[in-house]
């Protein structure tokens, strides 16, 4: 009996890892099949080990020639904390993808792309794709403080214009991404826009775009289990009907999202998530004395 068949013998090796900020990490992982197929807007589901949960992460970049995919994540709970503790040459047990419907990449004309916090990692492949498709790309990156503005150089490389906003004014303009959006809209005509980041940010970006009758796409990040359309855990209401974010999305027209419902459903397991993280942190303390 060949045991390597069942668990892939930890096929998915971490090749490079870098800490971007206090809580944000940048991993390159070996996943040749996914690297070949990944398109902007798609994600993977990963499971660290046999007792692990399945979590979705956006594919921030892919290199088919080396067979690597890039995952950038923020530590927000037990699984991301555990993932961040892994080093180069460690492996994770399961990695599935690319999942979800890709972003529609074409030449729209001038596009405005807004990324907030770790959502910048999710918009980077979209920026790259849209630039390569011939669009004039105006990028707005927002974060609480300067050190959380990740992938600045990479985004710059594929943007015709790059605006940075921080809540504390430590980098770029002080204020919110929606203020930067207003400034951009005031001075030029935009054909299409994207916003990815915390749900509140995406909701307000949608409202700003809607005021100017500007089409806007957002990428939803609801709770997922399988990520292949077989459970409906990630269901969202889009234009009044039930959609599964993992297969119908994760990208949807922002104006069609039922935001209050979406934000409420994100909180389903808050208590369990906290308990799990606390247990993990206690175990780490004991382990490391």
């Amino acid at each position, binding site marked *: *009996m*060949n045991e390597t*068949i*069942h*668990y*892939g013998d930890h096929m998915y090796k971490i090749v490079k890892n870098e800490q971007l900020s206090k809580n944000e990490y940048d991993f390159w992982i070996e996943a040749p*099949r*996914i690297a070949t*197929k990944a398109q902007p807007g798609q994600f993977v589901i990963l*499971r660290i080990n046999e*007792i*692990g*949960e*399945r979590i979705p992460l956006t594919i921030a970049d892919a290199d088919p020639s080396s067979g690597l995919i890039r995952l950038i994540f923020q530590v927000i709970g*037990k*699984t991301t904390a555990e993932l961040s503790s892994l080093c180069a040459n460690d492996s994770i*047990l*399961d*990695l*599935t*993808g*690319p*999942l979800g419907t890709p972003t529609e990449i074409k030449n729209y004309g001038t596009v405005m792309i807004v990324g907030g916090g770790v959502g910048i990692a999710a918009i980077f492949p979209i920026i790259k794709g849209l630039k390569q498709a011939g669009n004039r790309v105006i990028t707005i990156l927002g974060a609480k403080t300067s050190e959380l503005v990740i992938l600045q150089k990479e985004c710059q490389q594929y943007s015709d214009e790059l605006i940075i906003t921080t809540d504390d004014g430590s980098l770029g303009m002080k204020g919110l991404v929606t203020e930067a959006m207003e400034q951009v809209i005031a001075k030029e005509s935009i054909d299409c826009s994207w916003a990815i980041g915390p749900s509140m940010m995406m909701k307000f970006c949608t409202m700003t775009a809607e005021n100017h009758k500007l089409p806007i796409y957002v990428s939803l990040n609801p709770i997922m*289990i*399988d990520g*292949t*359309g*077989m*459970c*409906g*855990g990630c*269901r969202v*209401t889009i234009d009044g009907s*039930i959609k599964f974010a993992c*297969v119908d999305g994760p990208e949807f027209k922002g104006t069609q999202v*039922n935001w209050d*419902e979406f934000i*409420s*459903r994100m*909180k*389903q*397991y808050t208590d*369990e*998530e906290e*308990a*799990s993280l606390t*247990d993990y942190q206690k175990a780490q303390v004991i382990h490391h004395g």
Partner: protein
Amino acid sequence: MARRSRTKTAIAEQDPAIRKANFAEVCLGYTIEEGQTEAIRCLQCKDAPCITSCPVMIDIPGFILAIKEGDMQKAADVLGKYTNLPAICGRVCPQEKQCEQVCKLGMAKNFEPVAIGKLERLVADWALENQDFSKLIQKNQAKIGKIAVIGSGPSGLTVAGDLAKLNYEVIVYEALHDSGGVLTYGIPEFRLPKRIVKKEIESIEALGVTIETNVVVGKTITMDEIMDEFDACYISVGAGAPNFMGIPGTALNGVYSSSEYLTRINLMHSYEFPKYDTPIKASKNVVVIGGGNVAMDAARSAKRLGADHVSIVYRRSVEELPARIEEYHHSVEEDIHYYWLSNPIEYLNNGNGDLSGVKCIKMMLDKPDESGRRRPVPIKNSEFIVEADTVIEAIGQGSNKVLLSTFPELKLTKWGYIEADPKTGATSIPGIYAGGDIVTGAATVILAMGAGKVAAVEIDKYVREKKNTPVTTKV
């Protein structure tokens, strides 16, 4: 010889009071002695009707005779000729509607049929404990061809096992991290222990079948790549997309599809949270919607997670219940309450986006519909509210579009399932076969296996004709 008992030989089960708090298997199975006692009841009919009513046509009198003679290896060999998953079928087949329904002993006045399923399970469990898997390994001869199987549920595993025995190189692609399909994520541990599923799958791998997990066909690899690389392909991706009734309140926290609820429990072990990372809500009052086996599984799982009250809301009456009768009895023993002739019309919000109750309406049965069952219609002004913090919809599944949407050439039925010849499993595209729930819609494990058996023979024929290879082996 002892006189034939009128009733089936009694089988040990966990006490309901104890088992409703654990996930261990309810039915403990026969001992060999008990099995022999039961085997004596078989009439050894020459024209045994039980064989023809078994979707994989197991030589039932044959394996039962071997049990009676005390030759378990022979019994296992007989089973192995017909089925690759006997430990699973012995447990989850609706025998009362198949082999046992036509048993001639059961036709006799005041006699129960032979407990065929329980005997199959006895032999299969014996084999899993005692058989040397290395004996299963096929002789290393040149392979006839290379076959891709998409989906590692019961249908895919059956095709894979049979084609490996016919000397094909078989690769099974599975989207999830574990193989087995519904056997792994759907049917709970207390009905089908996962160690049994794992062992049975290992016995198929021992035949030379390779299972690649974490591969979503249509995404990770495409159908074009499969058609280039393989001589033929079998699609058995099941009917895994949950339906929602879509009544007001469906988005409230606490509303689950049965697929999500059971996947969290069975595949992700959330009942062992926080040892395992996937959480599930601890509920007080659970309402399950539906009357099939999945509804029973969800309700009984909720009870085992510690819910105080678990109810099933079913729009018809007990006579129409599609679930296995054995599981219905088990559920009643475990204090599952039933609201017959009732249908939910709204999920109620506690004000914070969480579920607080289910508003239902009473139903009455009208004239039979096309399916022959009496159609339920609502009774005006008969609404009532059941308090609930969790509701689980188990109202059926449809076809998953992830693969099919990337493969528009393949002809589908008007319900979105794959159009395949029931006699051969052939689809509209030569070399592509399909079977199981993705063809029939949600059905049973054994029907999915039956479709797999048929397709394996047809795929073999197809590849031999294509390659001009004469038939040299037989299953």
